[in-house]
Every structure is written in C-alpha cells, then in structure tokens.
C-alpha cells in the first residue's frame, strides 16, 4: 500500500525547519484540573474529522475535556512528539500508526493502559486490537482496522483480455502484457518501501522476533527472499511507474489516465482517487489482495496509516481518562460513523467488530461504478485474512527511514532488492546493538 506521503508536504517540511511545537499547532502538556472541574486530556492528531470528533466528545462529557491540537502530517508530528517528550511537554494522547508502537515504547513514551482497555477487547477486531499492544500489554486504543486489497482498471483489463489478478504470478503476467503497450502494472514510489514490507509479511517473513530476552533479526528468510523475487521481477521487467507521492497530483493523474492500472491499497486511499479523478471514475474494480501461488489468502498487518491507534503517553497525568476518551472515539457509534466517512472523517475502516456496517461509507460508488456491490464483500472478507503474527521492532522508526533511502536505489535499478535486504539486516543488527538492545541472529 505505497502511500506514506499523501501531499506535497511543504507545510510539513516548513514545520520541520521551524523545529518547534508552537509553530505547528503544538502546545501540549496537561492543562491540569482543579479538584472539582473536568479533567483535561490533550490530544495530538492530524486526521481529517478530528475537530468534529473532539467537539462531539466534549459536548457529551462533563468530567473529561479533550484539548485538541492538529498537526500537519504523520512524519512531522513524529518529530514534534519526540521533541515535546524530551522537553517533558508531551500530550496525553496522540494519533499514530500501529507499526511505530514498539519504537515509542522503546523510547519510554507510552503508558500501560491495559487495565482500562483490556475489558473492551472483544469490541474490536482482533488484529486491530493487537496493533495497540506489545507483548500483551495495551498502550492505547485502535482507531482503524487494516483491510487490504487490489484496485484495478476493469476496462483496461477487459480490453487486453486479462483476468483480474488472483496471484502475484498473475500480476507479473498481466504486467508483461501491458508493458508492451507502455502501461504499468503498479507504481513504486522511491520514498516508500511499504510494498516490500507488506509482501514480506504475506510471504511469512518475520523480520523481528522475540526470543527470550533478545530480538532475532532475519531479513533474509525464505519469505523475504520470495517477496524480493516478485518485486525484482516487476522492476527488471520495467512494469512499474515510479512516481513519488510527494507529487500527489501527478500520481493521481497517472492513475486516472491509465498510465498505471493496479494498486494494493486499503480503504482510505480511495478518497484521494475519487477527489482527483475525472476520466476513469466508475472504471475501477476491487479484487482480493493477490495470493502467493498455492497459498491461502493472507493480507498484511496494519501499516502505512491503516492500523491506526490512539496512544497514551507516559507523561499523561490522567491515563485512565485518556484511555476512556480514546475508547469513546473508537467505539461510540456516532464517532465511528463520523470518522469512517471520507467526507467528515478520514475514510479509514473502523476497528470495531461490526466494521462491516460502515463499509458503505468507506468505499465510493463514483469510483467503482457497477463493480461497487462486489467490492463491498471483498473489503469485508479481507479483514479475516490480516496477518497477526508479525512484530515491528523497537527501532522501526529509524529502520524504516533508512530502508526508504535504499528502496529508492532499488527502484532506479542501482541495487537489487536482495542487496537492500542484506544491507538492512546488517544495519538493523548494528543499530539495535548500539542502542544496547540484545540481538541474536539465526
């Protein structure tokens, strides 16, 4: 689901340059509460719809008040959070993605809220609940689940007499046919290696595994190598476009005009497509996430903004109230409905067990046309195949930044996927060791 960067993030870069919280909608810390007044919980996020969500919460609660500060995007807020935490001024609650939970935990930034959240465990889809936990301890509340599937140009596939791709081999075959006419099967953005991560997950890789008191690091297991082989075949065959998501308009235009005809996505990416397309509305269809030949369907765990969480920080004075607020935002039916819609919220599939009820909000009939009805079921079905045995490591933030640089060189053909994995294997072991974390290899 390559989409880490959604907009030409000038604002984000500017905030990064400014290096201060206050310049970019910061202002954190707990405003504190007098003994009889309501408790104030500060909350940082960047999602569309948060303001309305917080207003609804405050209107319905007398004992807790959420004080919201909106950031520009995930990357920028990450830096602001680190700084605020160093300064002892972190918010109580913040929006993030489940893949970074172990990193925040390793930096001592999270509070154990298991006693408040665990009783509500059965209200959430299991894979989503696990996203806010590390080794059975909950540090926040899931906000979204991670359905994942293929979206493709049904008209183009029909024109070339191609079947919707069921397996990765089908994708490569279709890619070969389409490449002859200069049509790309997929887009690999040079800054976003999430394609590699999600395919490794699917192929049964475990980059980080806990073995006793140490991390076992293995980026070169058979699963990773199998994922590498598929990607390498697509890159070598010149079947991909390589447009950066930084130039968001250009990426969308490329999809709209048939330059690239499939994407592996979750629900939220569709709102960007609907908003930017003019030519190809109604021509898209969904297919299940491609399987590996001969294997059962398996879709990646939450990454890349799907698999969202609201986390409670260790600097929060009122973790119980923060957890309560987070639970309300993720489970109250009105709150869930507000956030599930791409118009009023961020269009992410909710984390609650009845997420299927909201699927109408998260996918668009304008985009899918007559393929809309079939698409609903594909989205719901994909929730049952989410990988639950993948673990992100405690240095994932730094690791994914480093890997992004190497991924760019894979896309430009300067190195192979396997070379990247070999380098990252060594880098990850060294980085963990330099942090004083125990590592075992093979």
């Amino acid at each position, binding site marked *: 689901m390559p989409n880490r960067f959604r907009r030409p993030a000038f604002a984000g870069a500017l905030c990064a340059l400014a290096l201060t919280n206050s310049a970019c909608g910061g202002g954190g810390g707990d405003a504190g509460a007098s003994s009889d007044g309501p408790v104030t919980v500060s909350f940082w996020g960047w999602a569309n719809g948060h303001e309305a969500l917080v207003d609804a919460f405050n209107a319905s609660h007398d004992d807790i008040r959420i004080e919201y500060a909106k950031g520009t995007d995930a990357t920028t807020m990450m830096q602001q959070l680190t700084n605020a935490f160093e300064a002892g001024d972190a918010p109580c609650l913040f929006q993030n993605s489940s893949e970074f939970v172990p990193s925040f935990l390793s930096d001592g930034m*999270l509070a154990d809220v298991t006693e408040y959240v665990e009783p509500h465990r059965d209200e959430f889809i299991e894979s989503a609940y696990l996203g806010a936990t590390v080794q059975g301890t909950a540090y926040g509340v899931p906000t979204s689940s991670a359905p994942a599937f293929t979206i493709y140009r049904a008209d183009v596939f029909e024109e070339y007499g191609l079947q919707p791709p069921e397996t990765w081999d089908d994708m490569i075959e279709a890619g070969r046919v389409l490449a002859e006419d200069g049509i790309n099967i997929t887009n690999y953005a040079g800054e976003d290696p999430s394609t590699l991560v999600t395919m490794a997950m699917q192929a049964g890789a475990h980059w980080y595994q806990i073995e006793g008191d140490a991390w076992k690091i293995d980026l070169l297991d058979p699963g990773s190598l199998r994922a590498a082989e598929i990607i390498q075949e697509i890159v070598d065959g010149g079947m991909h476009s390589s447009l950066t998501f930084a130039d968001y308009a250009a990426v969308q235009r490329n999809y709209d005009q048939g330059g690239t005809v499939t994407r592996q996505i979750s629900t939220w990416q569709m709102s960007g497509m609907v908003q930017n397309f003019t030519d190809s509305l109604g021509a898209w269809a969904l297919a299940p996430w491609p399987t590996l030949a001969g294997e059962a369907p398996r879709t990646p765990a939450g990454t890349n903004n799907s698999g969202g969480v609201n986390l409670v920080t260790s600097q929060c004075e009122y973790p119980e109230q923060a957890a309560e607020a987070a639970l309300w935002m993720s489970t109250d039916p009105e709150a869930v409905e507000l956030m599930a819609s791409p118009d009023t919220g961020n269009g992410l599939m909710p984390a609650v067990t009845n997420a299927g009820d909201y699927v109408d909000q998260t996918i668009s009939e304008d985009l899918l046309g007559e393929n809309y009805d079939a698409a609903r079921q594909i989205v719901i079905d994909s929730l049952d195949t989410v990988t639950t045995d993948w673990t992100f490591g405690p240095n994932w933030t730094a690791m994914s*930044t480093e890997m992004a640089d190497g991924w760019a060189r894979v896309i430009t053909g300067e190195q192979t996927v396997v070379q990247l994995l070999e380098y990252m294997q060594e880098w990850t072991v060294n980085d963990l060791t330099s942090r004083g974390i125990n590592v075992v290899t093979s």
Partner: protein
Amino acid sequence: MIRSLRWKGAAFTAPFQLGFVFVYLLPIGYAVYQSLFVERRSGLGLGGGSTTEFVGLDNYERGLTDPVFLGAIGRVFLFACVQIPLMLGVALLVALLLDALTSRLTSAFRIGLLVPYMIPGVVATIVWVNVYSPDVGPLTDLGRLFGWSWNFFAPEMVWPSIGNLLTWHGIGYNMLIIYAALQAVPREMFDAARVDGASELRIALSIKVPYVRGALVLTGMLSIIHMLQIFNEPQLFRSVTPQTVDANFTPIMIIFNQAFASGNYNYAAALSVLLALFLGVASFLFYRLTTREAD
C-alpha cells in the same frame, strides 16, 4: 580609579557577553558534553527505561567511520567547489560592471540585484521549486517550445538546480560587499592607469580585482560555511522529490534525522561537533591559501 573605570567599561559589554555565553558557549559546551555519552536500553529495549553511559570518544569514532556521514560531507564539499567560484565570479563581474557605470541607473540595478537576498531562503526555495516543477512550472513549457524535455529534479540535475537557486539568492549580497570594496579603491589610480594607456579591462584586472581580494576572501569564507551547512534547500527539495534527495543527503540533514527521527541525540551532538571541526579546518585552510601571498 582606573580600575573602577575599567569595570564600568566592561559593564557596557555585558549584554554581548551574556548573549555570547548563553547563545554560543553553553550550547556548544552542552553539545560536546552530550556527545561523550550514549543512551542504552537493555534486553528487548521495550522496558521504556534507558541508562546514559559515558563512552568517551566512541560517538566520534562511529562518525568518522560512518560512510553515510563522510559521503554527505564529500557531496557538499564537491558542490561547494563548483558553486562558490561560480557564484562569486558572477558577483564580482556584476560588481565590476556596476562600478564601471556612473549613471543613476546603477543604484536601481543594485537594489534589483539585492531583492532576492531580501526574500527568506525558505520562501525563495519554495518559489524555485514551483518554477522547476515538471507539472506546474513554466520552465517545462518553455523547454517544450524548443523541443527540450528537461527535469530539474532528476538525479543529475538536483545540484545544478539547487546551485542556480543559491546563485540567484546570493549574488546580490556578495556583489554588495565586493562593490563596497571597489568604492574604496583610490580613483586617482584609474586616472594614472588611463594616462599610461591601460584599457578599462586592464584596469579591472590589474587594479580593481587585486584591491577587492580581501572582500573576495571574506565572501568566500562565508560561502564555504553556508554551503557545507546547507539544509533548507535540499530538505524542501526532498519534499517534492524524495527519490533523488534522500534523507541523508547533506551532513545537517543527517544530524537532523539522527536527533529528531531516530532519537540519537548523543550521536547527533557528536556529528555536529565533527561538522564544526571540519568547517573550521576548511575555513582555516582556505584563509591560509588565499592570503599567503600577501604576507
């Protein structure tokens, strides 16, 4: 009596001294101190706690053997070797031309050339990024008019693109310093030269340029410091072309990443000190090389 006067005199410098101590000495001292430690977690690193351990010069050793850091220093150094002579050459040429003109137009030109410098660097970069943009930039259409297709964000074009922007931004300022030095050249020397039959070109090369040597050394030194610390421009370029400008493109970008993305404040501090040392050495060598003949 004299002693108390001295104290009174010294007291006038207090605001400066305080600023110097708080804004320069203390932060530098703190960075050096920080650079001697590492933060270590233990076990799985999920306990949240970490201990700070004194490691002496380990961070420096790591920095000096870090191919990414050394590569970035090499990259900006090469860039500086091309960019600075080019920019100062143009600034010198413009200053000489302005000096040769006597009409009232010169002040209008002077102001005009200085306008880019009045624009904050970040804003200037955003302007140029949009000018360069393959999608909305006017240069793409202009190129098409002549049948060229150019991409200012392509890997081989990133530095020329940044260089052009820096030249545009920096000419006015450097020109002004050189021009001021030119004004100080005794005018009677030109008359003497003309009587001897020297052309204007000869006067420029043999009298004016040697006279502004000091100004060139000064602007050269300031430019070296600026170029090796380059951050704003590549960081903003990265936001539109992350595939060619990677996260570790320049030394300051690495330091920024280590501190604010990876949370390695100690290593970032060590790299900052190393970069400062490197800058100091480069400036010193430049100064020695350019002023030796004058001794």
